[in-house]
């Protein structure tokens, strides 16, 4: 095999040397034979003549030698390639359209696939990833992908099914290296993290179990990426410092370039030992490692050698509740009394990813959309090639009649398709990066680095596969069609027009292309409707005007007992400002993510049904909070200053929402009633329902506690009439700067938080719209080319029609009708496809049915408009033909 390849390569690259050797070898033979014959007594000239006669045809022998080395094949290929190159160069317009449409089709696929692969498909680049399992906590009905650190310790020390149990948790912090500042993902990892994963350092050392035993707090490992960007790949980086928030760490090592942590979508720049993380984490006393109810730690493990998965699951399920009983009671408060909780093992080979949880479905949908775009691009190219092939039909027929084999003609045609596809594939690879940058620009999700394009072996493989698929899809059909034409028929027909049968195939491709773009348009329309609906749904609060600000006093080392006073002072300043109508403080809707659990409440005299959810979502509110957010109070009174409690003491009064009131006090006025949360508390008011974490979710039971003016809860402010939110932001910044100079405050309009909660929907809506437009653009190019070709091949017919009195309008109508007929077929195929496809995306839709009739009708009309638009120019041109010239030509 290798020998043959080497021999072939020699034929390709050293052809002239081979020819020379061949000539010399045969000449030697003839001379040798001649001298042999001369020795036998013939005279020299006669000997040479005889030698030649004996040998037979020298050229024939040479040809057979070349064939023996596969030269015929190589020669034909190189002739075809030269031919194809010439044709590609000679038709720059055609080549540009073909390559660009393929590049867009392939590029979009690569871009989305790059994300899909990295986030959803790829296994972690660690030792034996298939034997790593996630340990997740299920508190029915929700599943938690994180647990508190004390829970992890309990699991590690009491359940003996793991050979190694490790974990990590983290967040984004401000990172300072020298005078360079940037937000950076930080991961706090257990000492055995790197050992268990089998990760080797690129430089220095990684964190070890000894670090954890020694309670190391001052050291950090940095990622390869950070080493390259922030330290310029400095080989002496070990010993240099990184600063996170206000804590400084000495770098001890660098992770290898292929290792991106265990959480796809959140690539850590810095790895800290657990006790080092205590210096950075928001909770300082008790620390994040000590809090039993704070679920932030992702846990994974390798099973002990001989424990089968099923056994491990069973043991965990059986043992955990018993172990959990020994756990501090307060940790369980976050789960309902009726909830059962247990641990489960799940596949950990691809790591845990919050981003994956949220986006995998959306990415799969996008993958489907770009696959459709690719098919359209191929169909488009097929149409273009077909139209051009029809132009070359006479040439083909002549060559066929002259004895070229059909296989030869197909090979020649395919060579050109392969060449175009390869150009498209390479351009697609370039376009992929460029497309993602462009999309990211429009999508404006700069904080989503995982969307960025990353080439890799799988992406390269896909680009090759798509290139081959493109060559086959767009080449084979026209190639077979053009070459199965019977030459005698084509040559007899003077105009070289498409015969009915060939036209049928071309129309099929066109209709399929239009049908696919209809699917894309319907998808885009459904997602846009979803976005529109989400944007117009009421969250139960005023999201347009309100501005919020979150001060981080901990970062500025301000003691907790002082923080309340500072907030109070800032609020007073805001209240005094003429630009601000009202300001208050409380847990603001949409600002905090969904932690997925509520707190258990009880109402005396209310009988819980089995399995009934008796949890409520807990919020904090200061006097005036409801007023600022525009949440109407429908019974009782708002909080007042006297309701506030000092830090640490239990509150006595609460406000509830309508939903909770209906749940427990059906038909009664709940004001004045008691509700138990640990201790009984008096309900003093009822407010309307609000959506707290997501506009999609339904309302929950809500409880509001009066704020004790401690900690870093958001401050909210509403502008005075006629004042823009931007002005309020500046006012708020000034107010905080006045009370505490160096406190970092995150200030933004509430609308921004709402929009952030919709980022997945926006991403899908915008990308599907972009792909829909791309699809329809490509389809209309194909349609245009086909109609233009049809018009030009019917020039004579149209000329006659015009000559015998047809009006320009009639000709236009005739051409448009042809376009609309194909479009109608496309719609008829596309509508059922779209309805079937949209059922797959129903989980991503909001308040719009997958088979929403107006959406379908409008999309179909849009396609019809496209059909008219694509045919308009050819139609106009046809109507302006001069009958006398058209009849004279040929």
């Amino acid at each position, binding site marked *: 095999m290798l020998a043959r390849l080497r*021999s072939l390569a020699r034929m390709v690259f050293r052809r002239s040397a081979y020819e020379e050797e061949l000539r010399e070898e045969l000449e030697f033979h003839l001379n040798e034979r001649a001298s042999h014959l001369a020795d036998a007594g013939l005279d020299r000239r006669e000997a040479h003549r005889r030698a030649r006669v004996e040998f037979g045809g020298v050229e024939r022998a040479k040809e057979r030698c070349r064939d023996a080395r596969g030269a015929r094949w190589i020669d034909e290929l190189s002739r075809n390639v030269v031919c194809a190159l010439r044709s590609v160069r000679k038709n720059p317009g055609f080549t540009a359209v073909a390559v660009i449409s393929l590049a867009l089709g392939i590029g979009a696929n690569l871009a989305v696939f790059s994300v899909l692969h990295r986030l959803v498909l790829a296994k972690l680049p660690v030792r034996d990833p298939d034997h790593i399992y996630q340990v997740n906590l299920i508190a029915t009905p929700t599943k938690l992908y994180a647990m508190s650190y004390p829970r992890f310790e309990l699991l590690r020390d009491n359940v003996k099914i793991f050979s190694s149990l490790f974990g990590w948790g983290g967040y984004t912090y401000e990172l300072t290296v020298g005078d360079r500042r940037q937000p950076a993902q930080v991961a706090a990892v257990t000492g055995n993290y790197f050992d268990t994963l089998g990760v080797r350092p690129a430089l220095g050392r990684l964190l070890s179990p000894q670090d954890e035993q020694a309670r190391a707090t001052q050291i950090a490992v940095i990622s390869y990426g950070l080493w390259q960007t922030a330290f310029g790949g400095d080989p002496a980086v070990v010993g240099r410092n990184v600063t996170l928030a206000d804590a400084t760490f000495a770098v001890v090592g660098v992770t290898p370039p292929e290792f991106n942590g265990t959480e796809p979508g959140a690539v850590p720049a810095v790895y800290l030992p657990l006790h080092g993380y205590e210096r950075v984490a928001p909770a300082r006393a008790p620390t994040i490692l000590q809090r039993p109810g704070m679920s932030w730690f992702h846990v994974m493990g390798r099973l002990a050698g001989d424990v089968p998965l099923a056994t491990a699951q069973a043991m965990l399920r059986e043992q955990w509740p018993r172990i959990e009983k020994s756990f501090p009671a307060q940790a369980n408060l976050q789960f309902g009394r009726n909830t059962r909780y247990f641990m489960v093992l799940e596949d950990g080979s691809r790591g845990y990813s919050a981003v994956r949880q949220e986006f995998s479905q959306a990415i799969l949908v996008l993958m489907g959309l770009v696959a459709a775009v690719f098919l359209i691009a191929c169909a488009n190219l097929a149409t273009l090639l077909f139209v051009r092939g029809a132009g070359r039909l006479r040439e083909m027929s002549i060559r066929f009649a002259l004895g070229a084999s059909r296989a030869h003609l197909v090979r020649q045609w395919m060579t050109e398709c392969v060449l175009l596809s390869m150009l498209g594939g390479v351009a697609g690879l370039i376009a992929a990066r460029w497309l993602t940058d462009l999309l990211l620009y429009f999508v404006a999700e700069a904080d989503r680095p995982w969307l960025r394009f990353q080439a890799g072996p799988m992406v390269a493989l896909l680009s090759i596969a798509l290139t081959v698929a493109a060559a086959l899809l767009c080449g084979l059909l026209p190639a077979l069609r053009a070459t199965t034409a019977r030459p005698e028929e084509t040559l007899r027909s003077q105009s070289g027009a498409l015969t009915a049968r060939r036209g049928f195939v071309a129309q099929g491709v066109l209709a399929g292309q239009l049908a696919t773009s209809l699917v894309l348009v319907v998808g885009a329309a459904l997602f846009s409707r979803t976005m529109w609906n989400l944007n117009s749904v009421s969250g139960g609060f005023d999201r347009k005007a309100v501005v919020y600000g979150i001060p981080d006093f901990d970062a500025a080392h301000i003691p907790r007992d002082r923080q309340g006073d500072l907030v109070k002072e800032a609020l007073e300043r805001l209240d005094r400002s003429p630009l601000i109508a009202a300001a208050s403080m409380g847990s603001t809707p949409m600002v905090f993510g969904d932690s997925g659990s509520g707190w258990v409440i009880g109402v005396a005299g209310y009988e819980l049904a089995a399995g009934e959810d008796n949890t409520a979502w807990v919020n904090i509110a200061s006097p005036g909070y409801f007023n600022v957010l525009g949440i109407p109070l429908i019974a009782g009174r708002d909080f007042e200053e006297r309701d506030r409690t000092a830090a640490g003491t239990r509150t006595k009064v609460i406000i509830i929402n309508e939903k909770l009131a209906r749940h427990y006090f059906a038909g009664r006025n709940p004001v004045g009633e008691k509700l138990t949360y640990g201790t009984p508390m008096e309900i003093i008011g009822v407010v309307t329902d609000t959506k707290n974490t997501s506009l999609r979710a339904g309302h929950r039971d809500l409880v509001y506690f009066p704020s004790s003016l401690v900690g870093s809860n958001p401050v909210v402010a509403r502008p005075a009439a006629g004042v823009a939110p931007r002005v309020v932001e500046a006012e708020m910044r000034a107010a905080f700067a006045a009370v505490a100079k160096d406190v970092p405050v995150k200030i933004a309009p509430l609308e921004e938080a709402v929009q952030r909660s919709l980022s997945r929907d926006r991403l899908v809506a915008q990308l599907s719209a972009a792909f829909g437009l791309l699809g329809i653009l490509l389809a209309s190019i194909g349609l245009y080319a086909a109609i233009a070709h049809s018009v030009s091949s019917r020039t004579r017919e149209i000329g006659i029609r015009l000559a015998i009195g047809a009006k320009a309008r009639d000709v236009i109508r005739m051409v448009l009708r042809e376009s609309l007929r194909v479009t109608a077929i496309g719609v008829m195929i596309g509508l059922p496809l779209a309805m079937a496809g949209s059922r797959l995306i129903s989980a991503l839709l909001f308040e719009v049915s997958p088979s929403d009739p107006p959406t379908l009708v409008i999309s179909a009309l849009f396609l019809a408009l496209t059909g008219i638009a694509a045919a308009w120019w050819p139609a106009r041109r046809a109507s302006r033909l001069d009958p006398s010239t058209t009849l004279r030509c040929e």
Partner: protein
Amino acid sequence: MRKQAELLPGTLDLLILKAVSLDRQHGYGVLLRIEQITGGALTVEQNALYPALHRLEHQGLLTSEWGVSDNNRRAKYYRLTAAGRRRLGEAVDSWNRLVAAMSAAIKTRTKEA
């Protein structure tokens, strides 16, 4: 002149491999060697020789190099590769089996007749 046998299809490769198995040979030398080792009973058509040599080289059974012939001319010499030697062994075995089977078959028929 002795009676010449016709070359069976597929035996040319075997003869060539055998001819170069002892020592390297140029194309003309292969021709002579075959005549010599078959005692002149088999002759190879000159025109067919070179395509066969090139095919065997293409398949990696032969390798070639340029050298100087006995009468001081530049000539292309072929020699067996390891793969070629293996192939020769296999071909000889299978030829022997064929011959044995054919001879047995022919003898049987002669007796019956």
